[in-house]
């Protein structure tokens, strides 16, 4: 279907961000004082709680909204979120686990070739943008997938999207385009 070579590209998901709501008001001070691995940031109005087993950092707001970052897969994110909710339940809050949603997935991938960024940007003008003064990578935004791919001149990519399928689809989408603008290896 796609013009991929026989060797498969390793897409490594490095970060999954998810949010959920506890439907109840949380007393941040109590969490801060009675939980381990918590950092209370009163000026920002939130508590950072770090879990060990799925390695997750959660930002907890007093309204009951929680953002979990640091998971390496969607399932792990859900597990971590549930653990967190359980932990809060034990602290004494009437926690209900609702509206769990994976918001962002970050993955890295590496092409076996280097990419000529300037050609790449000229060929894909409005979709791709490259500003060397600001960032060494060219940014390629895929609108229908709502994914953003950042292409570095070494051929490494970082892909961000709303879920893992989108990310995989984005990589497949961009592979042929990059293949055309590849830089021939010389040494």
């Amino acid at each position, binding site marked *: 279907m796609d013009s991929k070579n026989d060797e498969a590209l390793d897409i490594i998901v490095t970060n999954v961000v998810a949010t959920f709501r506890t439907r109840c008001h949380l007393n941040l001070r109590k969490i801060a004082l009675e939980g*381990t*691995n918590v950092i209370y940031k009163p000026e920002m109005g939130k508590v950072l709680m770090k879990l060990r087993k799925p390695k997750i950092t959660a930002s907890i707001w007093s309204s009951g909204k929680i953002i979990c970052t640091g998971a390496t897969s969607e399932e792990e994110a859900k597990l971590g979120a549930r653990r967190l909710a*359980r932990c809060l339940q034990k602290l004494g809050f009437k926690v209900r686990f609702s509206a769990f949603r994976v918001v962002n997935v970050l993955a890295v991938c590496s092409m076996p070739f280097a990419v000529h960024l300037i050609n790449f940007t000229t060929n894909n003008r409005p979709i791709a*943008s490259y500003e060397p*003064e600001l960032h060494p990578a060219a940014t390629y935004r895929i609108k229908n997938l709502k994914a953003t791919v950042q292409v570095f*001149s070494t051929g*490494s990519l970082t892909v961000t999207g709303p879920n893992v399928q989108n990310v995989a689809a984005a990589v497949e989408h961009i592979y042929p385009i990059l293949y055309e603008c590849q830089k021939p290896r010389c040494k």
Partner: protein
Amino acid sequence: MSSKVCKHCGSSDIDVDQARGDAVCMGCGSVLEDNIIVSEVEFVESGGGSLAVGQFVSSEGGNKNPSFGDGYFPGTGSESRAQTLQRAKHHIYTLGHQLQMNQHCLDTAFNFYKIALNKSLTRGRKAIHVIAACIYLVCRTEGTPHMLLDLSDIVQVNVWVLGKTFLLLSRELCINAPAIDPCLYIPRFTQMLEFGEKSREVSMTALRLVQRMKRDWMHTGRRPSGLCGAALLVAARLHDFCRTIKEIVNVVKVCETTLRKRLTEFEDTPTSQLTIEEFMKVDLDQECDPPCFTAGLKKKKSQQLELELKKKIEDFEDEIHGYQDEIDLELESCRPKLRGVYAAYTKEECLSDALNSTSSKGTEEMTESNELLAVAKHFGKELHEITLEALIKLEKEGSEEDENQQENENIPKRKGPTLASILGRMSSSATLGLSESISNCAVDDVEKDDITDNGELDLSGIDDSEIDFYLLSDNEVKIKTALWMAENSDYLKEQKEKEAKIQKEKELGIYKEKKPRSQSRRNTTIRAKTADEAIEKMLEQKKISTKINYDVLKDLNVKPSPSQASEAESPKLKQSATRTAGSNRRPAPTRTPLSLSTPLSTLGKRLQPFISKQPNKKLAVEKTEATSSPTVTEVAHPSEVVVEHGPVIYDDVEEEEDEEEPCVSAMELLGGDGYGCDGEYDDGY
């Protein structure tokens, strides 16, 4: 046109002249209509040429009909959009002149701004950001050697913020700016580095260097200024100019480390091996990979090497273990058997020895976790608070004991792998001593796909005992509370003070939820029939100043007594010239004589120029003081004179009277720009 047929002769041939506004019958020559309303544009002669008669009504403009007479703003359009554009134009021109851009570019930038305005891209963004982005957009499309850094220097805004706005603008306006070519910057930097006569040659060399760098793939993903800096450094040295790195850094605005790195990268390319003459003539065909690519490859190689080495080490390890066991056995057999009390102890030690040496994962884990628990109890902390260092210490202690018991040669290598294996396990499980729960959870981890939206927490796969570790016991809570209070005492104090303040204000009844911006006064224009009324009203509205004697001001209608006033005025005026604006409002203890309604004729020739522009209401008070004294000498320069007819409106232009102002000269106070008196007004009264 009503008439198509002539009344007199009945011919239908009627000539209508739009310019003259009459309709004439061509048959009989009778004039059928005259004074038709015409819609021609008329021109009027004025100073610099001819101006069209009429008022500018913008097509995008608001619904406000410009009212005739009131709301008169000299020099500016009365509608908000026109004002915005005017302001933006002014800013663009100022910035552009600082960057020495030509008029054409600035006009283009202004056009971009207009498009952005129409697309509502200026909403929610600071005007200066959008303006700077427009200018940079023009720079990129025209290919001028201006960097975003220059703009950010002038505007004093973070480069990344500007860059964000710029990217957004270029995306929304669908303007594809060509990529930055480092060659563009070379002439500019060469000029700044002042190479004198040889600058052309130096820039040629630098250009060649940059082109070579481009072919060697050093320029992708890098700031163009960095490359230019490196190229210029080399070019300068080639032509016997000793430009230090510091000078180049000042010009090019990258740091030393970057320059050095670029130079080393260039060193790695084969071109660097050429001599100067060869370089100028020959262009090597071979191209290189980008330096970060090669660095990445190197990393991969080194990692592979490490892995191989590790494997080898492990093989050696096994061998050594084998030898160790043999030696142990031998020693066992050779060692004299102890009798008595100590026999039991030695047996135990041997057992533990054997356990350790076999290094089965489970048992090691058990011993480890037991040891950890023991350590934890000793330190009074929770299990998971033990850091890596503690574990390493423990490991060392443990292995030391082993060595002592073995009575053998020290095998230092033993420390390494066990720690490494522990580390390996740790990184995979990421917990210390929670191995049982890990295995449990791995088994129980069953995910349910359907999300229970009613909010029930699905407890499958969650080990409660583990969660309990996350909660502190009561004792610990107390300790932590104390610590936290101590840590955040400042913040807590602030909060308390805030609350106390709010409470007080609530009691006093003047508590405001939020301080609203005092914008209400902005739009009210005072309408008064005479100038005196206007002043009164204005003063009422304005903040009450402690420096004004209001009783005196109320008697503004009293006619002047020049002689007594003059002496009082002149020393006061001398003071007023040097003091701040606020204090200038202090009127004389004796009466301020004049009001604006006194005819100019009484004032004398010298004083007419002192009647200045209206928006400055400070002047209103000043004027009364100034005009009274005919002998004012220091206010010598007549300012622009505007003779007022009819009712005077003062607009509440926000003036910071109560703020600190630097010494303002009397001329500025009177609103003069030093233009000189217009001849027309010197009518010889």
